[in-house]
């Protein structure tokens, strides 16, 4: 009896947790060497026209406050350590979204002398959003799909 009660409690807690996480993803944006095309699209996504706040997304300044790390561009040698440090500063549970062709595969910068490669070579990525640069609609779609995948877990 006591065991089943705790189990119910655990289930309830887990579902509350999922509900809270899917409804309030706070984001931080990190540019690890992008050409700025993707960054401009991300800023466009946050403008009143697309209004991500209706999904609960707020852009945060501090990695300590954020749940979702939005990365753009290939990882350059210089920014590799910073990207890692930003990721490690975020409290668990945390998610990473790679925005743009460069972030997903290295894109046009693949093979450059100063480029390590795509984001996944440095930190684990939860969602990829391809495009050069992806439209705001695509970015919103990617974020929503990430949240849906959380719900299924």
């Amino acid at each position, binding site marked *: 009896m006591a065991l089943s009660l705790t189990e119910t409690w655990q289930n309830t807690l887990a579902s509350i947790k999922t509900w809270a996480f899917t409804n309030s993803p706070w984001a931080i944006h990190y540019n690890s060497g992008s050409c700025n095309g993707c960054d401009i699209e991300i800023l466009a996504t946050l403008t009143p026209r697309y209004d991500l*706040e209706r999904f609960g997304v707020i852009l945060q300044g501090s990695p300590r406050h954020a749940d979702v790390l939005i990365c753009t561009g290939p990882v350059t040698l210089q920014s590799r350590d910073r990207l890692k440090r930003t990721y490690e500063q975020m409290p668990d549970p945390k998610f990473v979204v790679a925005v743009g062709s460069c972030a997903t595969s290295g894109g046009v910068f693949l093979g450059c002398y100063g480029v390590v490669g795509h984001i996944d070579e440095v930190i684990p990525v939860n969602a990829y959003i391809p495009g050069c640069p992806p439209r705001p609609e695509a970015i919103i779609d990617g974020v929503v799909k990430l949240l849906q995948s959380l719900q299924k877990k």
Partner: protein
Amino acid sequence: MNILGPIINVLFFPAGLFVLIIGLAYLWVDRKLVAQFQNRIGPRWFQPLADVVKLFFKEEVVPDGVDARFFVGLPILALAAALTTALYVPLVGLQGAYNFPGDLIVVVYLLSVVTMSLALAGSNTASRFSLIGATRTLTQLFSYEAPFLLALLGPAIVAHSWQINTINTYAGTHWILLTQPIGFVIALVGLMGKLELPPFDAPEAETEIVAGAMTDYSGRGLAIFQLAKAVEMVVGLTLIAALYLGGIGNPIDFFAKTLILLLFLAGLQSLFTRFRIEQTVKWWRYAALLVLAQWVIMVVLGQGVLS
């Protein structure tokens, strides 16, 4: 019964759970209004609740180089101070749960404790952003505290009492807003400064100093600070409505008056851009002078004319 009453007062109503729920609801109203002013749809009604619940479920990082006791204790101190003020103000039109002569001063200074613990939390880290944020928080606290206090004391003087309930009853028959318009404006803007809303959000300017004093807080500490801010907002709005807007006698009064004030707050937030810290201080210098001028006029004309 004698023990049960205070426990209910502290844990559920008016402090505790009740004021937390009202605070989250008002936070949502504020965000929604600002979103509407900016031509956006805005957050859903449960958004502040979801944010706080999520933060409670997150890992809390205690960074190296901080005093862990202070790091954990300061948010709790802030929330406790904010919740205590809720016992003394006429929430939902009821008389404050407790009152004594002079509780107006106590409430104003308990509201400052919230800001003080924020500043202490900021200076208790190794992060330079928190340090700058804490310095700015304190600078701003010193600049708005005097005009804000003077503005709240105006009604106290015409009501011949330092007790919130007495002033509230007095204000029920006299609209102090009409006789002391400067005091009202400065009290309202002072509340914006206290809550660090734009244009007075230099202490947490995310484009310059990441998140100000809150930079190193994550999870639980951040959530408790947000709750403290939400409670502070409700208490501040209630205080201004009770003192200036003809008192608060019943729940309809309470919601109508505080929500109208909130509408003004949201409008001012979306009208102005962020002041630099020294512009803020300059603004408050003029505000203090204005309140003092109003006090001189009050003294010269005598209380008979103004009351």
